[in-house]
């Protein structure tokens, strides 16, 4: 049996900065993960549909435009509604410390701010994806 962890790297809303998303996608690739990148300007509905169709283990949202408190909880709500709340949801990018509790409340497992160590992101992902 050939098992590969699948990660959806997604950009939500009117956020055009995806260098970070690409760096993280590349790091996942080099760590042996299969990464599906959505591209820019996604609605939460599109990301939820992609996550389900691709049957990913992890949804990693990169946010640099400040709409994280609106868009990420909407995404986690949609995932839950569609029975996909077993996916590990991660957030990264420019997210102030004071917003982290609200995101965790919404079901985000971890938030990786600017300067995060790629190895740490990979390690956290590996340890928290338990799907058999």
């Amino acid at each position: 049996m050939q098992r590969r962890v699948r990660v959806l790297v997604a950009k939500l809303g009117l956020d055009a900065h995806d260098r970070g998303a690409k760096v993280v996608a590349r790091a996942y690739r080099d760590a042996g993960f299969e990464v599906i990148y959505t591209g820019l300007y996604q609605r939460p509905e599109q990301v939820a549909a992609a996550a389900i169709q691709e049957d990913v283990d992890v949804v990693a949202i990169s946010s640099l435009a400040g709409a994280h408190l609106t868009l990420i909880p909407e995404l986690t709500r949609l995932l839950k509604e569609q029975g996909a709340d077993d996916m590990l949801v991660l957030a990264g990018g420019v997210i102030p410390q004071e917003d982290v509790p609200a995101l965790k409340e919404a079901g985000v497992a971890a938030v990786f701010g600017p300067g995060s160590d790629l190895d740490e992101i990979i390690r956290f992902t590996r340890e928290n994806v338990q799907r058999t």
Partner: protein
Amino acid sequence: MITKRCQELDVTTLLERFKAGDRRALARAITWVENGAPEAGELLRATFPDTGKAHVIGITGPPGAGKSTLVDKLAVHLRQRGKSVAIVAVDPSSPFSGGAILGDRIRMQRSVGDQGIFMRSLASRGHLGGLSVATADVVGLLDAFGFDTIIVETVGAGQSEVEIMELAHTTCVVMIPGMGDDIQAIKAGILEIGDVFAINKADREGADRAVSEIEAMLDLGHMGAPGINRWDENPTASADALKRLDRTGHHSPEETAGVQAQFSAAVQNVAERHGLPLPGHVTWRPPVVKTIAKDDQGVDSLVDWILQHLAFLQETGRWERMLERNAANKLRELVGMKAARRVLDQAAASGLLEQLTASVINRQTDPYTAAEKILSQVCCHGSN
């Protein structure tokens, strides 16, 4: 929490949900099949009776030709014509880490928002040939789920990734202007497998030239106008075409007719494959269509040709022959795979494999003799 949920999802429940049209169940079924999970066999057995209905369209061509963008627009057009559509897109896995970046969704922004379309990205996982090992089984699941049309996009192909032609009923080869001269066009390989050709990015310089080079390549092997040619309906055209086939001009019409009468069954087969105009034949001459996928230009015409090719397959009995061929191939492939695994497992269990490997390493035995020894001791006396 994750582990718990997956234990809940046993194969019986999954199949129930799959048959009720639950997309999450379909997505999970694909994962199991792709991973070769223990449940995969039962899933494939249970869904097999519902397969064999969908029209499978293969999209292949070099990297950057615009395959994904074209697939996006094709899916939208097929939806407008009332078809439900599934897309399977294969991208390469890293030969170093085994990881992959599957980027086909980025180009499929119009179609992936549509609930009538299901899109799945697959990594090639080390398989060469343009697809992944599991792609055919994944297509089978989508077929059983009830999609009318399944579009399979290969990895960016070079010259010899021709596996798609075995899987697809209609293969569309996507080229772009400036890929080489007419010798490139007559080389063996990927250009032989197109049922429909798209010259994408046709707003670029050299598009007309690319079209005429592909047309010229096709005319070396096919007679007739692009699309369906019914040679029995017009005996004069059929005879004219045969005369044109005789490029030496040294034969009288009677001689040509005599040669034709002597065609053996084998020659007829070859003639049919290459679309030669034998009386009574319905042949297909691949059309060449200019497209600009990003602006949705030429795509409607491409869809027309693809659907016409489907009509051609159904009308001429080729559809049934493809099903027969696929069934035979699949059976051979499975027996081959399983037999090899069983023989190796048994040889390993008895220690024979290890013992013979050691003697091959020492150059005491050659690998050919060793292989025969394993086969004769484990299972297959007297075979070659």
